[in-house]
C-alpha cells in the first residue's frame, strides 16, 4: 500500500469530504476529486479500497452514535486488526468525530424525518371590527402563518385564523403533548 495511505496528513480532509457526501447531502464530492486533491500520488486502484474502508468506519461510528469511550474501544480494536488502521489514523478519526458528532447526528435526524417539517411560524393578533350586520364588534382574531416544507422542496404557507376559543382548544392539546413529552423523557 502506498505510504501516503498509511499516514494521517490528509485524512482529516478526507473525512470532511466523506461527511459532506455521506451525511450532509452535498453531492459532487467524488472519489476522483478526493483522490486528486488529497492523495494525487496514489493510484485510483489503491485509493478506492482505502476510501471504502474510511467510509465504512465513519458510517459505523455515526450509525451507533458512539460516545467517546465506545469510540476509543472501536478504534483501538481497528488498530490491532489486520488491514485495520494505524494509531495516527485512529487519532485523526477520533478528533474528527469529537468535532463533528453533534452536526452529523443532527443531519441523520433530519434525514429520518420523512414528512414535512415546520420551517417557520409567524402570527399577528387583530382586533377584528365587523360591520353593521354583525354583532361581533371587536372580536380579536389571531392570524398565524405556518411555513411547512421539506429540504429540497418548496415550502407551503398555511395561513390560519383563530378566535379565542380555538386558540384555547389548541393550547389544551399542546399541553397534552407537553405532558406526554415529559413522561417520555423521564428517566425510567
Amino acid at each position: 500500500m502506498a505510504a501516503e495511505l498509511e499516514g494521517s496528513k490528509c485524512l482529516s480532509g478526507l473525512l470532511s469530504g466523506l461527511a459532506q457526501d455521506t451525511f450532509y447531502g452535498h453531492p459532487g464530492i467524488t472519489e476522483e476529486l478526493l483522490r486528486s486533491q488529497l492523495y494525487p500520488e496514489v493510484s485510483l486502484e489503491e485509493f478506492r479500497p482505502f476510501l471504502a474502508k474510511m467510509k465504512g468506519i465513519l458510517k459505523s461510528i455515526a450509525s451507533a452514535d458512539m460516545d467517546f469511550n465506545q469510540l476509543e474501544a472501536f478504534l483501538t480494536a481497528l488498530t490491532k486488526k489486520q488491514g485495520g488502521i494505524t494509531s495516527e489514523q485512529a487519532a485523526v478519526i477520533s478528533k474528527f468525530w469529537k468535532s463533528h458528532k453533534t452536526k452529523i447526528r443532527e443531519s441523520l435526524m433530519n434525514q429520518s424525518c420523512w414528512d414535512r417539517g415546520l420551517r417557520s411560524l409567524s402570527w399577528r393578533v387583530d382586533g377584528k371590527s365587523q360591520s353593521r350586520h354583525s354583532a361581533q364588534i371587536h372580536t380579536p382574531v389571531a392570524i398565524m402563518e405556518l411555513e411547512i416544507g421539506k429540504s429540497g422542496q418548496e415550502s407551503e404557507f398555511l395561513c390560519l385564523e383563530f378566535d379565542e376559543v380555538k386558540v384555547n382548544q389548541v393550547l389544551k392539546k399542546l399541553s397534552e403533548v407537553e405532558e406526554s413529552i415529559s413522561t417520555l423523557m423521564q428517566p425510567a
Partner: protein
Amino acid sequence: MEESSEPQLDAKSKVTSQLIDFEWKLGMAVSSDSCRSLKYPYVAVMLKVADHSGQVKNKSFEMTIPQFQNFYRQFKEIAAIIETV
C-alpha cells in the same frame, strides 16, 4: 353608493383557513438504515383545515422537541394577548 355585500374588512379572510381539528402524535424514531441509534423523539401534527369555500383538507408536518416547545410558547403568547384585546 350602494353596497350589495358586506364590506371586506379583513383582506386576509379570503386566504386564511379555519382550523377544524388538531391531531397529534408523539413518536420516537428508534433506528433507521443510516443510523442504528437514532433515539429521536418528534411530534407529528395533522391539521384539519377548511378554506374559505368550506373545503376541508389535511395538512401534516413534524416537529422536533425544541420546535414543538417554540410552537407551544407562541400559542401561549397568542392566548395571553388575545385575552387582553
